[in-house]
């Protein structure tokens, strides 16, 4: 296993208390696989990735748990050691291509910075050449010229390509992609996803793909982790998950998306209510308020994540290893 | 006028053994307006100019008695209309031009019609006006070293005017020609110091004139620095940035002496007064004016406002200008009488106008003075509404005459009593702020002008003063002392009654 997250809990201090954004989270990423993490806004996807990268904002900290990269706990590493890993072994691309590049530096300078940081011996000329190569690899036309551009001179799709080029410039083992296509147009979204698959093949790396779009998951992922309110509610191989979603939340999500194939004019399936406030979590299962199949116990106790068939599910319906009807 | 003055000036302790600095730095409150005696009217200019220029005559060190200077002697004709000056020989201007009768004529002629210009504030005061047939009629060059000046009518003050630092000094005719007749920026005279440079707002530097005809100046360089704020000057002196300062406020004296600095204090030629508007509604009657005057305890007021650095006034002129001053009887403090008198006159409120800036005759500024008087009048049930204006505005406001009482003052120019007393006879309301107009008084002034200097003349002016006191035209408040402070290392410093500061005798120990 390339990366293993064990019992990760991340908390934020806010005005009125402490928000537990990620709660006792455990999962792993295998060499060469695409692991998708899905969940609604605020379910803790980004916080998980930021915890791995050690990029949490000042008011947040990992309260407990381990993050093992090739067996070594990243949380125990010094700042310098972490810096050597970030951008080199594990790199990350972000949701907002429009704002994730520094507006005052040329594209080439930003990519070269990454290369030179991790290859201090390389001279500038060489780094520039490598930069142009990377830009070409991610499909930027006439890369020599575009390398001289400032980010604002590029479209969103181009910027996301630049971000990818930058993330891949040191050939990382693991790429964390936090909703890399959400902010982009449909046709551009397709381009970027296509590029990601290509790059994965080319660089033989693992990808942790964060998204809230189940379509993207179905298209791209090998395995899926579904998060809700900072916890994993279900996790399985991608085919298994889409064939037989177990957790009522996963099921709801899948049913509520309008599908192209769907010809009926029936109303869409709706998940009732809203995500609870992280400061006022319900006592029992966080989904209990919105669940169609909520039982008494759900409101009182928190279910455990347990294996059910080839899934891991956190629901009292599967208390006995199989669905209770 | 005679003079008997208590001078606590810097005693010239001629300790020849002490090593001397070659620079004397003096701080005053403002830049001179200019350095051409014909073009300026302010004390700050005078202090600098008196070191560069000389006139035909000069005042003696501690009075306004005239003494020879560039003229070795002079004669007045019997009718008092012709003055003949015998000039000193072998004197050169700083630019090398020889000093002679032509130079004298040039210096005076430029201030006579038709050459005189608007910007020459003292020209008519010193030399009169040909149009108005007063003052100088003609300057005649008798020979290289003799000049004859003819007047239109006998004028006793003329000889004092010739010793003034304004208008009267003789400037180099070559320099005048080279600078379009205006030496404001490039003064050239015959004095003990030569002009070096003037950095506006900062300083003026002078250097010793080594070709001086008389005793050479003792210190090589003189620097005048311009520091507006009183407190800033005080600090500059205590911290050793400058060697001497003037215009210090009375309340800082103890601080300065405490720091080891010395104070120079001598009666100044000033009067600080409050004028009643005698043509106004409230103070038409002498009785009302008298009652108001009685309400103010002048000695107490002066003591607290000016500490020991102004003398409570009992008459218009300081004693040293006119021995008779002491005999003048003025209205004195009487609270009960004041209350009764004011009630009788039906005065319950008074409009006062005053100026905000400190003036040479009133170092605390008109506002503080007005407030103090406001306080006294409150005790007798009269409300004073004070309106304060800065000096610029004040002069225009005064002109309009829209007040019951106003504050004003006067600094003497030449030590002649006419220079003071003539104020109450001036037809111009901006000079004669009380709007006083009395035929008897007018007659006295006219007589004084033509009477030859001496005891008889002094008596005439004493009568003037008594008349003004009886009529309660002014509430005379104080004669400011000329206050200056200098470091104990300085010797030979003095501040003349006319407000000038000749530095030729000053030394500064290292």
């Amino acid at each position, binding site marked *: 296993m390339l990366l293993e997250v064990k019992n990760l809990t991340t908390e934020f201090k806010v005005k009125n208390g402490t928000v537990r954004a990620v709660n006792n989270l455990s999962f792993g990423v295998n060499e060469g696989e695409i692991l998708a993490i899905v969940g609604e806004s605020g379910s803790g996807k980004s916080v998980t990735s930021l915890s791995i990268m050690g990029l949490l904002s000042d008011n947040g900290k990992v309260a407990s748990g381990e993050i093992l990269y090739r067996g070594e706990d990243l949380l125990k590493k010094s700042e310098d050691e972490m810096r050597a890993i970030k951008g080199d072994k594990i790199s990350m691309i972000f949701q907002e291509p429009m704002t994730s590049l520094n507006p005052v530096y040329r594209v080439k300078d930003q990519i070269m910075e990454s290369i030179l940081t991790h290859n201090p011996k390389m001279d500038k000329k060489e780094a520039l050449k490598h930069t142009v190569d990377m830009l070409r690899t991610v499909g930027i036309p006439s890369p020599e010229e575009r390398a001289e551009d400032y980010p604002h001179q590029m479209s969103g799709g181009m910027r996301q390509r630049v971000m990818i080029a930058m993330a891949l410039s040191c050939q990382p083992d693991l790429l964390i992609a936090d909703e890399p296509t959400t902010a982009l147009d449909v046709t551009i979204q397709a381009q970027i996803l296509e590029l990601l698959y290509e790059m994965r093949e080319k660089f033989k790396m693992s990808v942790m793909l964060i998204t809230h779009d189940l379509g993207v998951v179905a298209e791209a992922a090998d395995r899926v982790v579904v998060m809700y309110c900072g916890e994993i509610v279900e996790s399985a191989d991608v085919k298994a998950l889409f064939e037989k979603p177990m957790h009522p939340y996963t099921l709801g999500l899948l049913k509520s998306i309008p599908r192209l194939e769907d010809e009926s004019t029936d109303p869409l399936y709706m998940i009732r209510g809203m995500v609870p406030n992280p400061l006022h979590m319900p006592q029992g299962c966080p989904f209990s308020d919105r669940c169609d199949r909520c039982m008494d116990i759900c409101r009182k106790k928190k279910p455990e994540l347990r294996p059910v068939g080839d899934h891991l599910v956190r629901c009292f319906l599967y208390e006995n290893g199989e669905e209770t009807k | 006028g005679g003079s008997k003055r208590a001078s606590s000036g810097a005693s010239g302790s001629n300790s020849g053994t002490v090593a001397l600095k070659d620079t004397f730095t003096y701080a005053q409150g403002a830049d001179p307006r200019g350095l051409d005696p014909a073009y300026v009217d302010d004390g700050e200019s005078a202090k600098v100019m008196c070191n560069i220029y000389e006139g035909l005559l000069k005042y003696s060190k501690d009075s306004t008695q005239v003494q020879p200077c560039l003229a070795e002697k002079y004669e007045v004709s019997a009718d008092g209309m012709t003055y003949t000056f015998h000039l000193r020989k072998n004197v050169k201007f700083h630019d090398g031009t020889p000093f002679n009768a032509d130079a004298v004529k040039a210096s005076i002629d430029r201030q006579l019609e038709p050459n005189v210009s608007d910007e020459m504030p003292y020209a008519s005061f010193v030399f009169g006006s040909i149009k108005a047939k007063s003052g100088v009629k003609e300057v005649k060059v008798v020979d290289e070293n003799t000049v004859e000046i003819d007047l239109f009518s006998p004028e006793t003050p003329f000889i004092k005017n010739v010793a003034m630092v304004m208008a009267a000094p003789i400037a180099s005719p070559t320099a005048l020609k080279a600078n379009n007749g205006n030496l404001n920026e490039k003064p050239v005279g015959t004095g003990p110091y030569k002009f070096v440079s003037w950095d506006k707002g900062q300083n003026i530097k002078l250097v010793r004139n080594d070709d001086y005809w008389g005793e050479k100046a003792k210190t090589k360089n003189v620097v005048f620095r311009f520091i507006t704020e009183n407190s800033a000057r005080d600090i500059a002196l205590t911290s050793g940035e400058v060697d001497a300062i003037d215009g210090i406020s009375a309340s800082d004296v103890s601080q300065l002496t405490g720091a080891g600095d010395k104070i120079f204090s001598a009666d100044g030629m000033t009067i600080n007064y409050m004028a009643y508007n005698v043509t106004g509604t409230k103070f038409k009657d002498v009785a009302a004016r008298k009652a108001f005057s009685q309400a103010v305890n002048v000695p107490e007021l002066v003591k607290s406002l000016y500490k020991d650095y102004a003398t409570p006034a009992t008459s218009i002129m300081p004693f040293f200008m006119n021995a008779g001053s002491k005999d003048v009887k003025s209205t004195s403090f009487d609270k009960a009488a004041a209350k009764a008198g004011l009630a009788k006159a039906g005065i319950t409120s008074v409009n006062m106008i005053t100026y905000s800036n400190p003036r040479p005759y009133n170092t605390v500024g008109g506002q503080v003075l007005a407030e103090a008087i406001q*306080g006294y009048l409150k005790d007798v049930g009269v409300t004073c509404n004070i*309106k304060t204006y800065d000096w610029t*505005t004040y002069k225009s406001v005064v002109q309009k005459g829209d007040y019951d009482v106003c504050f004003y003052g006067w600094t003497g120019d030449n030590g002649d009593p006419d220079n003071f007393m003539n104020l109450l006879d001036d037809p111009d309301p901006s000079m004669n702020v009380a709007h006083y107009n009395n035929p008897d008084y007018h007659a006295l002034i006219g007589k004084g002008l033509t009477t030859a200097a001496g005891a008889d003349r002094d008596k005439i002016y004493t009568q003037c003063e008594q008349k003004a006191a009886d009529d309660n035209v002014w509430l005379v408040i104080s004669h400011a002392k000329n206050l200056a402070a200098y470091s104990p290392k300085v010797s030979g410093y003095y501040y003349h009654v006319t407000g000038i500061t000749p530095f030729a005798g000053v030394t500064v120990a290292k």
Partner: protein
Amino acid sequence: MEENKEIAETSSITVGLEEKPESIWKSVWDSLKKNKAAMISLVFIIILVLVAVITAIFPGVLPHDPYEQNLAKSFAFPNAQYWFGTDQLGRDIFSRILVGTRVSLSVGVIAVAVSLTCGVLLGSIAGYLGGKVDTIIMRLMDIMLSIPSILLAIAFMAALGQGIDKAIIAISLVSIPEYARIVRGEILSVKQNDYVQAAKVIGDKNSRIVFHHVLPNVMSSIIVRATLGISSAILDASALGFLGLGVQPPMAEWGDMLGRARNYILSAPYAMIFPGLAISLSVLAFNLLGDGLRDALDPKSRQN
């Protein structure tokens, strides 16, 4: 931006929707209450206001008559009788500072009120109407802004003459452009908001849109500016007073007291230290309160 919205969404839900609704001002107040510095300042300002009002209504509470001179006791060192000493005319500095509160506060408040009104009016017209009107108004403001305000104020004072009313006019005049600019900028940005467009779509008239939708949303930044503006008006007034252009005697004004005492800093430093402290502390209080208000009015901080 994106993230804030999301945090906002998740956190806003549980405000137990059946509870009594909470007005915006109450929540601003709640969040202001947590800011210690702002609360201390607020208390200080309330005390200032009380002092100003009480000394005006019951001058008897003052330890001494602030206008009563006692020439015999001029420049008394601070002592049990005269806590802050006496000034040149022997007046009690402490009483004068208390009375001066009224002058400083009213200069601050009135000047801000006047300049704010004019500034808001000009800024709203320029910002909302745009086009030529905007250009003309803003050029005018540019002209005023390019003369240092203190010089402009001094010139106004020199022209108008001395007096507290004149000082207020001068200070108000010179601070109009700043308000106009701020309001215009805010209006331009609020104008872009969808809710303003929504108001147009439902058929609101321009005037209603400005007064109902635009201005109230600019209000919070105006309030903050105004609070900070009071502090700079107090500073400006004291600067004018210091230069001897402030008030007519015997009125007590802090800057004026300081300016007069300046000539005696060596002999009577207390005569300038205390008025200076009074100015600094009041200015500080208004600044801190303004900062606190800004934080409290910031929608980001209100969400939780």
